[in-house]
């Protein structure tokens, strides 16, 4: 089935920012840095990578945490520095910015596909409940595409995910929460 991808405004703005960047090669270079918890996603896919600037020889990278306590941030910061160091940029500063707060809307379209193939349902694969939170059933199973699923826990293997089980193929799966 062909799908017409609808791009949220937030994603469009991010893409514009990347395409218009003076240091486009650095954005490409940092595509090798993956989220340690979800290793199919780059920090660009996830929307954690906010900005890259150059000040003389120095590269300043701005990242933002998904959740307040995301333990991956320290790793990501180290990985960003190492990737740039290896490419010959000796002076690197990684800044963490809290505002605007990360939103799952920032995740790239490519990232959503990768998530699904990896066995994690992306945020749009469930209809949210009236409070805008994870529903208690019917997130689409990333394994067999069934909607006959139910939520087992609000909190999955990491803070950004909830746990579901599919009643058709019986597989449990993570659902990437919308925030």
């Amino acid at each position, binding site marked *: 089935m062909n799908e017409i991808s609808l791009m949220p405004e937030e994603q469009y703005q991010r893409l514009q920012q990347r395409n218009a960047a003076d240091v486009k090669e650095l954005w490409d270079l940092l595509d090798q840095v993956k989220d340690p918890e979800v290793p199919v996603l780059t920090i660009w896919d996830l929307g954690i990578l906010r900005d890259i600037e150059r000040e003389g020889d120095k590269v300043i990278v701005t990242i933002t*945490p998904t*959740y*307040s*306590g*995301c*333990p991956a941030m320290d790793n990501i910061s180290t990985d960003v520095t190492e990737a740039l160091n290896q490419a010959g940029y000796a002076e690197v500063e990684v800044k963490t910015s*809290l*505002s*605007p*707060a*990360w939103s799952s809307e920032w995740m790239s379209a490519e990232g959503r596909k990768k998530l699904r193939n990896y066995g994690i349902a992306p945020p749009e694969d469930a209809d949210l409940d009236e*409070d*805008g*939170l*994870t529903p208690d059933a019917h997130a689409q199973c990333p394994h067999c595409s069934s909607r006959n699923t139910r939520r*087992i*826990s*609000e*909190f*999955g*293997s*990491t*803070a950004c995910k909830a*746990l579901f089980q599919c009643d058709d193929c019986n597989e449990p799966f993570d659902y990437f*929460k919308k*925030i």
Partner: protein
Amino acid sequence: MSDIKAATLEYATRLGDDSVVLGHRISEWVSYGPFLEEDIAYGNVALDYIGRARMFYTYAAELANDGRTEDDFAYMRNDREYRNLLLMEMPKGDFAYSQVRQLFADVYYTVLLPELLQSKDETLSAIAAKAIKETKYHLRRSRDWVLRLGDGTEESHKRTQKAVEQLWGYTHEMFDMDETEQLLADAGIGVDVSKLRDAWHKMVSDILTEATITVPEDSWAVRGGRTGYHTENLGHMLTEMQIVHRSHPGCEW
């Protein structure tokens, strides 16, 4: 340091203390949860709070500008230097007790954070913006559990009612103002928590009533956390929380 800056440093420390102490208490459930998913949920909520504490402490350290880091705030202060609300330091108790405390705290943040979001202080506002999103999920979970336990078996009802009665007197302190917080509230930086009590009481009462739990009368109150007078529980908690850091100063791995 200006009065406002000194007050903001104190305020960020207080909010950080609330978060780290509650975060640690929640983390005490990890590997003791009633079932695996609940165990994982506890771990995640604890992480959210510890993450918040890191943001508040990092800001406090920046304001203090005296070489201290977030770690010094968390690990190198004694109980008398901690300024957290007493509710946060109460021991984990049984499952009902922890969920009732969590409900009280989650509703508190539900009414507090939208106000903090309006702060003229950009960092405090940014931290609130992140925390609001997480609190929605926290509240839904603690609310569900209190409903399920209150309106559950005779035993779970009894324990939930008891927990509510034991913790109620610790909730009044959440809405106290002092000079520091008044100064910040007047400056549009801090939140006037005294105005939040009614909203908190209404939301909590509605949930407790739905859970067939009797809302207690305001017959007693314990105070002191904001001035460093704690229950004996905090000292014990800190010894455990701080021992690794203090035993191996400067250790990195």
